[in-house]
């Protein structure tokens, strides 16, 4: 018999030894959250079927659930991740597999031991080439969203070097560029992007122009309060004259990786807003849309911006 408000530990103990009623109570308690986890990672057509399969899998695996390792909902989300990975692999969605794999590794670092967990994408069918026009436009929007964004210049440069051009892992950036002015690093990054992309200059240079402009302002004029608070001694320095090592706050390679990841999150969020202005929810946006900001008022008001 299930008593109202029975503790979760007691329920999981009973579910582990085969008490279906206890499992169903747990399912009812956590169903909403698990459903939310699933539905943004698959199409709407597949959500309900997958949800059913995931709860079946969780029930099958209840005997091995260990409440000392994780809460019950984390156990279900773990198996949801495995089932989603399998689902995308069966559909031949290589990129979805790769993205989900790296996400699950962050959530569950021990997942590498799991036999069913694999980033094996070699067996997947070749992904059909995406529509060229759409792909080209999206990359163009990403480039614009990135280097026209308000992310701090040192973070943008870290992202650009780590992510967009070849052969600049954090280790090499720290070893070779720590003492180079941000202004020079920006020039190098732009040139590397041009060379590696083979794009016309007219496509690339306007996207980097705003970044170059920001190099001529004082640090406090181009960063948010949070970043300023982290680097107070840089407040009145001209950004272009600063160096990457001026921003290090611990392990330099970790700093570079963290900055790169921060920009990646900002870029995806900003570009998704540009993607669908009309259908996005009426959300509270902190400040203006990032990709739409061109000339921040605070830069003009700083009196250093010459038109």
């Amino acid at each position, binding site marked *: 018999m299930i008593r109202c408000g029975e503790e979760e530990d007691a329920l999981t103990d009973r579910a582990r030894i085969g008490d279906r009623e206890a499992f169903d109570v747990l399912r009812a308690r956590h169903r*909403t*959250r*698990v459903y*939310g*986890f699933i*539905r*943004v*990672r698959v199409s709407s057509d597949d959500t309900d079927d997958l949800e059913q399969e995931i709860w079946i899998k969780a029930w099958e695996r209840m005997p091995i659930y260990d409440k000392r390792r994780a809460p019950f909902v984390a156990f279900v989300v773990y198996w949801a991740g495995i089932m989603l990975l399998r689902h995308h692999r069966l559909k031949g969605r290589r*990129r*979805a597999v*790769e*993205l989900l794999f790296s*996400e699950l590794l*962050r*959530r569950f670092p021990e997942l590498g031991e799991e036999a069913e967990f694999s980033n094996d994408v070699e067996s997947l069918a070749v992904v059909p*080439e995406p529509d*060229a*026009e759409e*792909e*080209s*436009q*999206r*990359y*163009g929007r*990403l*480039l614009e969203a990135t280097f026209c964004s308000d992310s701090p210049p040192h973070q943008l440069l870290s992202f650009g070097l780590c*992510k*967009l051009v*070849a052969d600049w892992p954090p280790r090499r950036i720290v070893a070779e560029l720590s003492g180079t002015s941000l202004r020079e690093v920006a020039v190098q990054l732009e040139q*590397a*992007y*041009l*060379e*590696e*992309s*083979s*794009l*016309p*200059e*007219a*496509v690339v240079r306007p996207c980097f122009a705003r970044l170059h402009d920001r190099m001529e302002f004082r640090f406090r004029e181009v960063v948010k309060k949070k970043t300023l608070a982290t680097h107070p001694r840089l407040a009145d320095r001209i950004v272009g004259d600063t160096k990457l090592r001026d921003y290090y706050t611990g392990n330099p390679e970790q700093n570079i990786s963290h900055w790169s*990841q921060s920009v*990646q*999150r*900002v*870029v*995806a*969020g*900003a570009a*998704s*807003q540009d*993607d*669908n202005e009309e259908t*996005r*929810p*009426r*959300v*509270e*946006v*902190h400040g203006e849309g990032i990709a739409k900001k061109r000339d921040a008022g605070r830069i003009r008001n700083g009196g250093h911006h010459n038109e």
Partner: protein
Amino acid sequence: MSDGERETHVLAEELSSYFECALPPERETIIEEHLAKCDACTEQARRVRGLLEMVGRWSAAAHGVAYWRAQVARALQAAAEQPQYQTWHEKLHAWRATWGERVDAAVRVVVGTQGRASRVITEGLEELVRPSAPWRFALAPVPIPTTAPPGEPPPAPVVAVSEGQARARLSVSGDAREVVVRVERICPGTTPPLVMLIAAAEGAAPRVVEPEKRPNASYFIARFEDVPPGEYLAVFEPQ
């Protein structure tokens, strides 16, 4: 929007953080429970996830390939609709239908002007070229051209060559404002490939030329005249 309404939806940037597992567990729970019920935020989250997938494969090289693929696709469409290329409409349609944006050779060309030298860039577009294409362009060992001071002879054109069973030579001259392609050792009974010159500038119409055999010669010439200064892509029809 009231405070209550404001709290119910999820910001796009926060969705990025959610997928990157960068949020506190309590916030993740709130977001997942909201996503289970909110169709609009679910769609937004799917878009953000799609963009994260795209950001995941974004690089300068990938951007370049996508850009030029789009340019070739657009140029093929535009050329197939131009009356002056009616003779080749069937060939252009077949190119697009069979090969998509693939080409047999791709060479970037910069037609220079006073103060800016012409250039030919043969690298960086290998992904546009179909496997087993017979052409492989490389810069020819000629003196690097510079713009000529007044009164001096114009600089030699910049040249790229492809050596193989079939040979091709592409030269660019900013002073003459022309791009010339010479093709030789074409198998008897076959026609040389169409050559298309695609401007990087938005809105410019592509040009298509079929190399013509010179009298008493074994080679074919395709000449693009009056080419305004700027960046172009020269591509060969797949055969």
